[in-house]
């Protein structure tokens, strides 16, 4: 029996017979060279990427920076990067991408895929230890349109994954078996779940999809041990609650106001605040039935991690008519602004603006466009965009926006945020929905997209000023995530399938590899294994690992 086989046996027995496990482990001890899997601790999650051999949570750590301190691969040798292995998932997200972020722990990759497949892979070879496939119902709603998943969360011996039928699952990390299965919401009314859970001490935080259906979004916290819900925050208030004054006085409209929460948030352990992006109001394009700002849609919310109560919010797109979800990874940093140290949260938003907010109070510190959008060019003193073009004066960014959910990356030493921007031209034609049916698509109109006018770009934003330092243009609008390393590299990709390494200072492309399918939604993951730095990128139905040659 291999050491891994032993691990499986130990884990299986651990559920029922702890004494037998001890005996078994002792009996094998002489044959096992390395220590037993210690389990993922909260301290491991806090340390994030400062432990070079791990990538323990969606963004690498709680800050949402996707910034690795690794330096083995650097601007002067990255041109030598070569593939080490390719894993073929055997499943595709039709019309979407392989949006997952693999987690890395003790030489094993924990990977989710489209259609709620999942795997534990040997990081040395890409070979699977186990595969999981969920038996999904045939009448999925959102889950049928976008059958994607963005990754696991993990703690102890457990992995956590949400599903297209809107459940939260806990897996035994060693065997792939299901330990508990909790229903988040009724998928039949239009919900699905796709975002990687955010695991903090004693809680698994998850969001929900469904903003294009008559649904109501929420952020939930669950007990990692039992799967029982600890708290829920609804992103659209109940009648009479704070925020309900930004909606019509109609309980039915509030009950289906949208506000999905389909991207993983960030966490400040010192403030004990969770930062989470909230999606569009419903119906997406038709706003006459929902006069008002429609809080907390198209906003960033800061929730008390202990109780789920709202500490502050900032709404990027009041009364959104363009499906500009604020489904982004909030990026936490400590900046000096006006000579004062500020704890900030940064968002490059789907509405085309880059924002810096005080993350203790929600105060707006900077708001500048990073795209060519004509919707607005500045934020007024009241913190609201000064809208110049509601669509009546020519095209606006399309409903995929000036960027989208693909995670950006922040390089702290350079004080630059790297974001995949989209420049598009769309005409919005709102229409009043004829009838509202639970489980039926409800976007309130159509959008004309002039596809041949669009392009994409990787843009470097100086976070102190919002100024663009450089850009690299892609032929078409692109949905690729971004990752940076301390050696001064930016890993990104494009819709044509290139996985690309750039010089972070200059924007010069230093290396690229044509993967054969769009880099879509995912960003690179990097870690050390056997003293070599590996870089992973999902693309199409495959996951490929790169490293410098072994010689």
């Amino acid at each position, binding site marked *: 029996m291999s050491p891994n086989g032993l691990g499986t046996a130990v884990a299986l027995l651990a559920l029922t017979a702890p004494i037998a496990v001890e005996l078994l482990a002792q009996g094998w001890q002489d044959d096992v060279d390395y220590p037993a899997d210690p389990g993922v601790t909260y301290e491991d999650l806090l340390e994030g990427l400062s432990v070079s051999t791990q990538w323990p949570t969606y963004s690498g750590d709680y800050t949402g920076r996707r910034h690795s301190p690794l330096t083995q691969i650097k601007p002067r040798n990255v041109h030598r990067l070569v593939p080490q292995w390719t894993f073929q998932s055997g499943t*595709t997200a*039709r*019309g*979407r991408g392989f949006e997952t972020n693999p987690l890395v722990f003790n030489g094993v990759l924990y990977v989710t895929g489209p259609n709620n497949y999942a795997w534990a892979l040997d990081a040395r070879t890409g070979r699977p230890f186990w595969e999981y496939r969920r038996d999904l119902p045939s009448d999925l*709603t*959102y889950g*049928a*349109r*976008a*059958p994607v998943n963005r990754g696991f969360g993990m703690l102890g011996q457990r992995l956590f994954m949400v599903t297209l039928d809107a459940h939260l699952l806990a897996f035994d990390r060693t065997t792939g078996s299901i330990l508990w299965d909790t229903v988040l919401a009724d998928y039949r009314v239009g919900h699905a779940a796709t975002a990687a859970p955010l695991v903090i001490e004693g809680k698994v935080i998850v969001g929900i999809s469904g903003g294009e259906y008559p649904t109501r979004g929420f952020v939930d916290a669950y007990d990692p041990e039992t799967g029982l819900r600890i708290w829920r925050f609804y992103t659209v208030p109940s009648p009479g609650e704070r925020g309900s004054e930004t909606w019509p006085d109609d309980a039915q409209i509030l009950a289906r106001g949208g506000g999905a929460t389909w991207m993983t948030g960030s966490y400040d352990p010192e403030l004990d605040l969770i930062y989470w992006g909230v999606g569009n109001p419903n119906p997406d394009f038709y706003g006459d039935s929902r006069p008002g700002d429609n809080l907390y849609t198209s906003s960033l919310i800061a929730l008390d991690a202990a109780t789920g109560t709202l500490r502050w919010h900032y709404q990027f797109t009041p009364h959104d008519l363009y499906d500009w979800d604020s489904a982004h990874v909030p990026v936490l940093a400590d900046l000096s602004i006006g000579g004062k140290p500020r704890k900030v949260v940064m968002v490059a938003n789907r509405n085309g603006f880059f924002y810096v907010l005080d993350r203790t109070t929600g105060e707006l510190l900077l708001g500048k466009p990073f795209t060519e959008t004509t919707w607005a060019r500045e934020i007024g003193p009241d913190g609201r965009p000064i809208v110049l073009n509601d669509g009546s004066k020519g095209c606006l960014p*399309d*409903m995929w926006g000036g960027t989208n959910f693909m995670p950006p990356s922040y390089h702290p030493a350079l004080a630059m945020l790297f974001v995949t921007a989209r420049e598009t031209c*769309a005409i919005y*034609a709102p229409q009043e929905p004829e009838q509202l049916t639970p489980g*039926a*698509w409800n976007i309130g109109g*159509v*959008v*004309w*997209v*002039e*596809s*041949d006018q669009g392009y994409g770009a990787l843009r470097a934003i100086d976070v102190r000023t919002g100024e663009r330092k450089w850009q*690299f*243009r*892609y*032929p078409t609008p692109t949905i690729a995530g971004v990752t940076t390393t301390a050696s001064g590299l930016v890993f990104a990709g*494009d819709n*044509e*399938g*290139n996985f*690309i390494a750039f010089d972070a200072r200059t924007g010069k*492309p230093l290396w*690229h590899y*044509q993967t054969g399918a769009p880099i879509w939604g995912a960003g690179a993951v990097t870690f050390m294994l056997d003293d070599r730095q590996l870089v992973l990128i999902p693309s199409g139905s495959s996951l490929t690992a790169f490293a410098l040659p072994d010689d």
Partner: protein
Amino acid sequence: MFRPPFAILIVAAPLIAGAVGVNPYEGDSGAIRVGEALFRSQCAACHGPDAKGISAPDLTALWTSGATDERIYRMIRTGVPESAMPPSGAPDKQLWAIVAYLKNLGAVPAWPHATGDPDRGREVFAVECARCHRMHGNGGRHGPDLSNIAAIRTRETVARAIREPSASVTAGYRAVTLVTSDGARLRGIAKGEDAFSIQIIDANERLRGFRKADLRAVDHERTSAMPEFGPADLSDAVLEDLLEYLHRETATDGSAAPPEPSPSAASE
């Protein structure tokens, strides 16, 4: 050109129980407009803004290739298994509007018989067109194959494409000039491109790929690679001859006499 994957469609269709019915919007101009907007926002990323195909098939000739309204409806509803085509949960009305739009694209009225002489047109085609356009297995490969042009485009569209070819250039047929590191200029048709490379068909119909790093410049031409045939180059009467020849050779609706098989076509 891509062929629609009807083999897959036929497998998928029987999985759906019950009759779907006929399109309530057939020929409804308002619904066609809505269908076009839906198509541009939901389908165009893969099928192209004009439905002529990018990474997914050209949809402009579905009905002339044997499709029915119901099959297309079901294909959009269920998606195509094991392909990038997703299922749709959109309301029936939206799907039928898309079907109406697509059918309208392919709804080419039979070309009227005109005064031109198709035999004279054949000579014009051989001299002016065949170097770049293929028909029934003969001719060049720089421009679109015209073997079914009378079935998929109106007579007016084809006439305009001859008079003003730059007014609308089909994706995959745009001209590009590459300047190599030694300064040589190479003109061709761009068949594919990404941030670092370009794939062309050159003047000699060779498929050639280049790394942009090895090129001094990549100059995309705004105008069509096809020369303009104004009235001075091609009189109205000669244009009529040419159109009549295209009608005779490429109509599939019986509106033209069946083409006489040419020896070279029969040999393929």
